[in-house]
């Protein structure tokens, strides 16, 4: 199970080493810290996207959520002069609420996640543009939220706070996903919702919670991005970001069929994407090829992973065949294992052979 993550680490190291060898500027402290900042920014909401993907769903609305929550957030701080902790809280609640609505539509009203979140993408973007009459919102010259700004975009000993947030959130979600009962349920629901339901798991609540967590993380990401760019242009802020998150999750080992993926994988997937972007810049590859490079790497990565898995499965199947080889002894073992007082010999047998 950890093989995937190990492979990603290796890939990350190899790409970094090659890029560093070609252009040592890649490994300079400034560049590394800059990348760490971006990994932090893009990692936080990728974690939420990952959880949603593990349920077998998808969240396409994240980028638009950033725009809507972003303009509201700036307005709360500048126009309404609301004390920043409350503004922060309101944006967080806003993210949770949007996630909750999507979760409700998907689980209670049985709508498809793709459709619900696609409509979310359109609606939130439209709402943000209408709300601001399509004008960019930014901070004035006053220091409306200098404390929060320092927290969101500052650094501790040079390490960007965004990266530190990502690590903290990843640790929390890592425990949630890999150690908690909820995490176990999430995987079970993602793999086989019906069997989970037959085991007494409230599958609707489990799935809706994933969307709510994703919404909440989108709220946090909004604040981090707002202080990264210091202004929000409602028509472009966060555009395509949900796709970065999906790409990171998939590259990190999540399957869109659900039930697979890990927090570490998602973080590594995010890191790999940012390294690729950086590499395009630093190696002087035309910036217009940015997406093409990303797409190619994801394609090759997922393909390689599938091939490796198929090979592992074949090996396992061969091993189990070899184990069950002498059928007659197996049958004897089965019969001697059955309680001796039962002299049951049913005449009908099921057949799967």
């Amino acid at each position, binding site marked *: 199970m950890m093989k995937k993550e190990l492979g990603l680490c290796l890939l990350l190291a190899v790409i970094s080493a090659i890029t560093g060898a070609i252009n040592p500027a890649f490994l300079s402290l400034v560049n590394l810290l800059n990348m760490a900042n971006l990994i932090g920014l893009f990692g936080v909401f990728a974690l939420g996207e990952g959880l949603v993907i593990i349920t077998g769903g998808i969240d396409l609305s994240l980028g638009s959520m950033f725009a809507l929550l972003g303009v509201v957030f700036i307005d709360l701080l500048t126009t309404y002069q609301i004390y920043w902790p409350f503004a922060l809280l309101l944006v967080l609640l806003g993210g949770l609420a949007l996630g909750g609505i999507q979760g409700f539509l998907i689980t209670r009203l049985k709508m498809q996640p793709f459709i619900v979140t696609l409509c979310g993408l359109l609606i939130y973007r439209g709402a943000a543009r209408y709300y601001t009459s399509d004008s960019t919102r930014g901070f004035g010259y006053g220091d409306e939220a200098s404390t929060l700004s320092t927290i969101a975009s500052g650094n501790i000993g040079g390490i960007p706070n965004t990266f530190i947030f990502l690590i903290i959130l990843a640790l929390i979600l890592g425990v949630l996903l890999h150690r*908690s009962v909820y995490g176990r349920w999430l995987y079970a629901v993602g793999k086989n919702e019906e069997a989970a*339901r037959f085991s007494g798991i409230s599958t609707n609540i489990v799935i809706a919670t994933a969307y709510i967590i994703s919404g909440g993380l989108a709220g946090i990401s909004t604040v981090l991005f707002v202080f990264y760019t210091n202004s929000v242009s409602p028509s472009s802020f966060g555009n395509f970001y949900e796709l970065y998150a999906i790409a990171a999750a998939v590259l990190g080992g999540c399957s869109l069929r659900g039930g697979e993926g890990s927090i570490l994988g998602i973080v590594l997937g995010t890191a790999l994407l940012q390294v690729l972007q950086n590499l395009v810049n630093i190696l002087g590859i035309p910036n217009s090829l940015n997406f093409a490079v990303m797409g190619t790497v994801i394609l090759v990565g997922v393909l390689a992973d599938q091939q490796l898995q198929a090979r592992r499965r074949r090996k396992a199947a061969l091993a189990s*065949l070899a184990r069950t080889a002498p059928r007659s002894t197996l049958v004897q073992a089965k019969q001697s294992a*059955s*309680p001796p007082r039962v002299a*049951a*010999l*049913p005449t*009908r*047998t099921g057949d799967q052979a």
Partner: protein
Amino acid sequence: MAETLLELTSISKTYPGVRALDDVSLRVYRGEVLGLIGENGAGKSTLMRVLGGVIAPSEGVIRIGGNDLARMTVSEATRAGIAFVHQELNLFENLDVAANVFIGREKLTGGPLKLVDNAQMRARVTPLLERLGADFTPNTPVDNLSIAERQMVEIAKALSIDARVIIMDEPTSSLTISETERLLEVIADLKAHDISVIYISHRLGEIMTCADRVVVLRDGRTVGELARHELSHAAMIRLMIGRDLKALYTPPKRSPQPGGCDIVGLVTIAYPDRQIDLSVRRGEILGLAGLVGAGRTSLARAVFGIDPLLGGEIRIGDAPVGVASPRDAIRQGIYLVPEDRKKSGLVLELPIRENVTLASLLNYARMWLVNGAVERKIAKEQVRSLSIKAPSIDMEAVTLSGGNQQKVVLGKWLSMQPRVMFFDEPTRGIDVGAKSEIYALMRDLADQGVAIVMISSDMEEVIGVSDRVAVMHEGAVSGVLEREQFSEYNVLRLAIGQALETVEAAAP
């Protein structure tokens, strides 16, 4: 004897480490019904796959139409007139009957445009359906057809390629009794038209009715052949398992106690205008018989909280319990071992350990964190006490055999405290050894005071394992039989909605 249509000589098939077929020879004569029986893994399906050209034999010769072949391809088999009616029907539900019959060989029109000629295909299918006595039209979507009707579509498909041998693999496993009779009539009709049928079934009664000859496989070898006049249940069973049939029934250690589960006036979504009254006592196995679709599974789903209750009450030990969800049911100690273990019973890709603890995880979690040590302990206990054959508790459930998978489902419930357990077709698709283990487990549970309801369509299981049998007919319980009243005849009468004959009912 009649002309030999098809002959397999010394066919062997070896997989790495397994000899699936070992020197099997088989002849099919024109216009005969050949019964093919054998235990789980005896090689029936492998043999049929060789015949269908799906797999190549490692050794041996296939003689068909005067040609000797070392192997066949699927299209050669089709051309030779071999057709399959599959165990799991291979139809496209989103297409209509005619499109399914001609799938892959669509009639075309419009020259280079290669458009599908629906009119012609329908016109060709109509007479086939008439011949089979089907009461649906070629343009009915397969989605709207029952399983029996879908089988007719498969047979029509076989007829449309002028099949000379039709292989039917467990064709009646999900048919009602009247549908089964209808199928047997169709088989007789095919036979009258000189078409041979290879009939694979575990239902020996049907084999007795329709087969001219029976070939018995065991461990990949032909162990015997019975002519029509030699056919008897005992003879077939002896060859299949090499032993005589003994009684299934183990009586309870002590007589059943009151305080089990009472179902009063229950209304399910399957039959909103019917009420179900049923009670099962602590310490007994209540068999729940009936035709497929009689509402038995709906009852179990409703009591377990999967489907909503439209009315009525469930009482355990005289206290009414509310079950709005499976969670509520589980809290009350009502568990369900579902009909389809791969779909509803297990998360196949998860390890045995996680499947066993899936329902009980929260009971021993601290602050919602899984207690790994306790989890492993519980999983190991269940693997040991149920003698689940697996190298480790971390093996994925998908790698296990059917019987062992079913035991993992059981382990999930037995790691908690059951009070009432519903088993829905608990031994479907499970081999003989595992079957008797599951019967023993049910009896053990009953002896520990659990009230057990066993839904089963297997008559021998119903009669052989139950302490009492309740029979359902069209959404209601049509009667309850005590052991001294048990007979296939009585169960069937109740299942088709007729009252018991008074003599039978009064019998001691």
